[in-house]
């Protein structure tokens, strides 16, 4: 693989952190995404007014839309876990879009980032299950009939770990593939604007993959909340 030029890595190299920055490009860029989100949230909530201005009404629209999207699936009791869902959505969306800016890297184009996100969803799913059902949460894993319980237990456990795999690899593969295609097209015919349609598709993919990750998280949460069949 040839050497890629990333602004953040060069800046950190200037500060004497080059060794860390070269080894953990996705971590450095996910710090940038965290900074964008924190500063953005701070700026948007600094002057909250009853009659919203432009920026505030846009932020309200995003949050309101996400909340309606979630409550539609889980019902009103799922509102307690809305902060997690909104955070994950915004984080993934901003991370995906960051990769479209030349000189930056999508943190989600690395399996470590997406796997940690998927593990958070996995952990929270079972926390919700234990919180809502206590000891009875075991029933979720035992299937409908008692004689089949040992078989169902194995299948359900494999299924729950497959969720982590599919969530993380789906996001990673999409974003990594997008970055690779844009890179190859830039190398082949960057002067003739060849990557332009793929860049447009990239915006779409960024939004859809962020939406799919959050939607599947919401569905898993709703599955952990409902009574065992």
């Amino acid at each position, binding site marked *: 693989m040839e050497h890629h030029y990333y602004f953040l890595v060069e800046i950190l190299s200037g500060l004497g952190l080059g060794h860390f920055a070269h080894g953990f490009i996705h971590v450095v860029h996910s710090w940038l995404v965290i900074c964008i989100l924190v500063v953005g949230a701070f700026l948007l909530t600094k002057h909250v007014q009853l009659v919203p201005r432009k920026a505030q009404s846009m932020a309200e629209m995003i949050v309101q839309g996400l909340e309606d999207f979630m409550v539609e699936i889980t019902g009103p009791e799922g509102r307690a876990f809305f902060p997690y869902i909104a955070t994950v959505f915004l984080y993934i969306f901003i991370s995906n879009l960051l990769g479209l800016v030349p000189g930056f890297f999508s943190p989600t184009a690395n399996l470590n980032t997406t796997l940690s996100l998927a593990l958070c969803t996995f952990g929270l799913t079972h926390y919700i299950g234990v919180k809502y059902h206590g000891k009875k949460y075991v029933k979720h894993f035992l299937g409908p009939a008692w004689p089949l319980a040992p078989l169902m237990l194995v299948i359900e456990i494999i299924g729950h770990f497959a969720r982590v795999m599919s969530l993380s*690899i*789906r996001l990673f*593969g999409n974003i*990594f593939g997008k970055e690779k295609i844009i890179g190859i097209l830039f190398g082949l015919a960057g002067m003739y604007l060849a990557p332009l349609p793929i860049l447009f598709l990239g915006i779409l993919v960024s939004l*859809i993959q962020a*939406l799919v990750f959050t*939607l599947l998280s919401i569905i898993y949460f709703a599955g952990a909340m409902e009574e065992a069949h």
Partner: protein
Amino acid sequence: MAIEGVDLMKAAAFIGAGLAMGFGAIGPGVGEGYAAGKACEAIGRNPEEAGLLTRTMLVGQAVSESTGIYSLVIALLLLFVV
């Protein structure tokens, strides 16, 4: 230049990566096109629900696309790990 065992292994891995990506792209391509066609039919019949239908279609397509993404991962493993 003599061709050795390592070169043969590399060649086989590259052929395998190409085949995995090519055949793996057939399924999602056909399936997603089918889903988009059905969504167009449904929007034609019921234009008020276009927003909901488009959203559902996109989410379903993204989920069914994961098989293609798995073949991409296999191809990448063959290219860079083997």
